[in-house]
């Protein structure tokens, strides 16, 4: 796959989409800096249930060029607001088995307080805006496209409703 379609690197910001496993060391090394006293790393992992209902696996899809554009824009904004030395965000696409990482975010800052805050904000902004979609596959029934307005059930679309 052409890397120019799946990652953007710009002035301390790195954003990427991949169908491969995510590597914690790689994403931490993207933000490592001699001026940083702290790196905060967030790993989002796929949960085995939705409100108690067993989930078999998750499928992620993306509008890749727009998702990368949005990721870069929100990372640059967070970097400026918290005086970060680096920020990196990578999201996995395709089938992600239960218990594996679906997203990694790493931020580095001179001091830990800014890094903690920036890391949390980066995840919240990502979940709110980045054009990636999660489908939960259940045992023995149809999958559901989830929406990140947390807690409310996703939108169930029955194939037989469609006219084509």
């Amino acid at each position: 796959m052409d890397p120019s379609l799946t990652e953007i690197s710009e002035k301390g910001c790195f954003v990427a989409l991949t169908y491969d496993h995510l590597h914690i060391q790689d994403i931490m090394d993207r933000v490592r800096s001699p001026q940083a006293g702290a790196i905060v790393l967030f790993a989002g992992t796929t949960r085995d249930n939705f409100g108690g209902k067993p989930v078999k696996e998750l499928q992620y899809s993306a509008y890749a060029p727009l998702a990368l554009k949005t990721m870069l824009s929100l990372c640059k904004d967070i970097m400026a607001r918290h005086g970060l030395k680096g920020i990196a965000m990578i999201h996995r696409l395709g089938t992600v088995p239960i218990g594996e990482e679906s997203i990694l975010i790493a931020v580095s800052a001179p001091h830990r307080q800014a890094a903690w805050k920036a890391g949390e904000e980066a995840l919240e902004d990502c979940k709110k805006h980045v054009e990636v979609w999660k489908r939960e596959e259940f045992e023995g029934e149809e999958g559901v496209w989830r929406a990140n307005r947390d807690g409310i059930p996703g939108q169930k679309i029955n194939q037989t409703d469609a006219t084509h």
Partner: protein
Amino acid sequence: MGGAIPKPPKDHFNVLYFASASSFTAKEYDVLPAPLPISKLFDALEEKHNGIKDKVLSSCLVTVNLNYVDVPNKDGEDASESDVVIKAGDEVAIIPPVSSG
């Protein structure tokens, strides 16, 4: 990512579908004739996919060439002068509520 979407034929544009929009239409994209005011987009899609307006589009946003645009007719308002016109070759996308993370 995924299958590459072919360029639209002359005087047409592509509409890309993701997540619930793709499940509903059972397609990754449609090809529509240009030009088309953005206020007419949802009606044009409803003609192709009966029920899509209520079940899917009402909760979706729209981008043209990777920029979000207002869809004036969405809530029954009249199309205003600020109505964007979709041109031949534009890439339009239907963006359902996102769920990354």
